[in-house]
């Protein structure tokens, strides 16, 4: 007489599904923040009456070596206006914010053409600064 072997029941473990979905969600949230400029070295200048800058798609940084970066990518001042214009597209007023992170010691020869380029591209300039602490 032949005995029929009982088929073992194999289920995909579904206990960790929630964890996996959560991790995937966070992974894509981090990826979406593609404006990584954490490698750029700069020290913000200090000022009073500061406000939260809010969300923007465009950040221009001038580092301590006076190099200009747009969203973390180095580029020349000549390319800046057109590239900012491309990023801003047809965004309405109020959504055309451009953050300027300029190193506190960089000179007018460098930051003024950058400000001009932002203005030319129709960007709404926001200087990123540190709060001044009264002595």
């Amino acid at each position: 007489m032949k005995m029929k072997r009982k088929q073992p029941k194999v289920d995909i473990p579904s206990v960790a599904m929630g964890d996996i979905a959560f991790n995937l969600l966070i992974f894509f949230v981090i990826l979406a923040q593609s404006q990584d400029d954490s490698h750029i070295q700069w020290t913000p200048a200090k000022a009073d009456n500061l406000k939260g800058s809010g969300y923007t798609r465009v950040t221009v940084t001038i580092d301590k070596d006076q190099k200009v970066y747009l969203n973390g990518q180095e580029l020349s001042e000549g390319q800046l206006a057109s590239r900012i214009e491309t990023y801003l597209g047809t965004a309405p007023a109020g959504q055309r914010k451009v953050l300027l992170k300029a190193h506190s010691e960089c000179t007018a020869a460098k930051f003024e053409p950058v400000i001009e380029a932002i203005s030319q591209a129709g960007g709404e300039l926001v200087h990123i600064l540190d709060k001044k602490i009264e002595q």
Partner: protein
Amino acid sequence: MKFRRSTKLLVDVPAVASGDIAFNLIVFFLVCASTQPDTGRSQILPKSEQTQQQKEQDEHLTVDLKRNAILINGDPVKVSEVKARVKAKLAGKSRPDDRVVIVKSTDDVPYHAWIEVTSQIEDAGGIITLQLEEERTVDVPQ
């Protein structure tokens, strides 16, 4: 007669999910660090255009910024006095066109000095306009 229970129950904290928890904590703090809000000052600048220098200077308040000096309409002032001086000059001017302040900086002016002065001008009610010198290349025939 009392009997002492001889068998102690050994209860372990479930350690299976520790790796997952640690990973989630790392990611959570990573996200928090990268979304730290920035603070700053917004500045409204008119779109750049080429204008006659003399006409502009006659009509508007002019602030000359040099590395070690600030001049308002040619008069030297201290950094701490800029706001009060600009406020006094703009008193009674309500139209935005009249409140335009032309800022002219030499190439060696550092950003921290520039932002300090322009912040004071804005706090005094002025509308900043930058005056940049146009660079021209002239070919000299030989």
